[in-house]
């Protein structure tokens, strides 16, 4: 798959290969996939749980800014989303 260009308008969903859930025993969000599990950092969990196939990256960053005021997170979030695409965790939802 070709690496899509991430913009503020990008709308992503979790790729069908993966399932995101909160794991009480691990005290973190995890991505589950065939015979494997990725443990996510707190910030990665906060980002991925907002990826719902409807919210644009710009809106997602705005929502995070409301929750974590004063934290300069634009670049970090965009960078993480790019990484997540690289790992195959995300798919873009075509724009209407």
């Amino acid at each position: 798959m070709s690496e899509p260009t991430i913009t503020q308008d990008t709308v992503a969903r979790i790729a069908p290969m993966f399932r995101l859930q909160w794991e009480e025993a691990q005290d973190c969000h995890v991505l589950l996939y065939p015979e494997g599990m990725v443990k996510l950092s707190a910030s990665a969990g906060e980002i991925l749980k907002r990826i719902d196939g409807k919210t644009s990256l710009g809106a997602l960053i705005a929502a995070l800014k409301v929750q974590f005021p004063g934290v300069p997170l634009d670049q970090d979030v965009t960078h993480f989303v790019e990484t997540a695409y690289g790992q195959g965790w995300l798919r873009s939802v075509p724009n209407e």
Partner: protein
Amino acid sequence: MAKVGYAPSPMSKPLWLLAELTYRCPLQCPYCSNPLEIAQYKDELTTEQWISVLQQARRMGAAQLGFSGGEPLVRPDLEILIAEARRLGYYSNLITSGVGMDEARVAAFKEAGLDHIQISFQASDEDLNNYLGGSASFEHKYAMARVVKKYEYPMVLNIVIHRQNIDQIEDIIKMTIDLKADYVELASTQYYGWSKLNAAGLLPTREQLARAERIAHEYQDRMKGQMKILYVVPDYYENRPKACMNGWGSVFLTIAPDGSALPCHAARQLPGFTFPNVKTQSIESIWNDSDAFNRFRGDDWMQEPCRSCPEKGKDFGGCRCQAFMLTGDATQADPVCDKSPHHASLVTEVARMTAVSLAEVRAQPLVFRNLKNSRALSAKPTA
């Protein structure tokens, strides 16, 4: 009371639950990972007992669940167990030959919340596939793999690689591309149980291996981003052992069809063990307190060269079953390791087994995994 400088390590959790629902199987693969003694274990846990196993392990933190066997599809309650697994929050994997599957069942599993299906093929060539499986299953497997993708499951195809199919590796990979697998496991036979019995007929030569590895790597590059290809070399050709089960009693919990709890599915062959059973003991006490699960935790059990080895935290001395099979002592270093005093004799044995031609190998009959052969093997006096 905690001593100064002493931090008790938190007890590990059984993250991976392998539920071997049954040893019954319509196939007879001569490298089956089930024990040779399958005929002795007719007893299977009931639906209610399996549900209790799923609930207990989930409470302890298990997240990955494999429904395996034998052939798990022979259990008519599989749909019920899948639904319970989904309700509990497991990621559930169905590990199947595809025999006994039909579209209605694939749809019912989806409805029940199954996450992933892994189908095994024995070869890409119909005749060889059917010969190795001891059953005319190829066309059906092919059709079922299409159905699995039709229902949008992530699909893993697993092909056990050995001397008699390794030269067809390119055809095998092309088959998996045609079937649109998401993930392909080209898993070399490891030598336990049935495959140990048939090792001389299965162990590839070093030349075969080098060629197969080159082709696998070629396709890994070519398919990047579309399909992941995992290629596993036979342990016997390695110089360092695998971190078997990620360490004994570390993350893996196998429940055998009769309810025996095992730190790995091959552990049953180890002497001097009484494996606990979920019918009489809770999973929590099995995992935390049983002798069987504690025996090879940590490194107190190790001998030299493992005990003072700087790599012991990485590979945990390798595989306990392999150590037992090749040295007669499960506390030895896995002889795959070139630091093991038994490594040289393993290398000699590998050279001896692979010195014969493929034609000669094919002329030797394989011992197929079935109840008749299991009974005959059990009847033999042990050395």
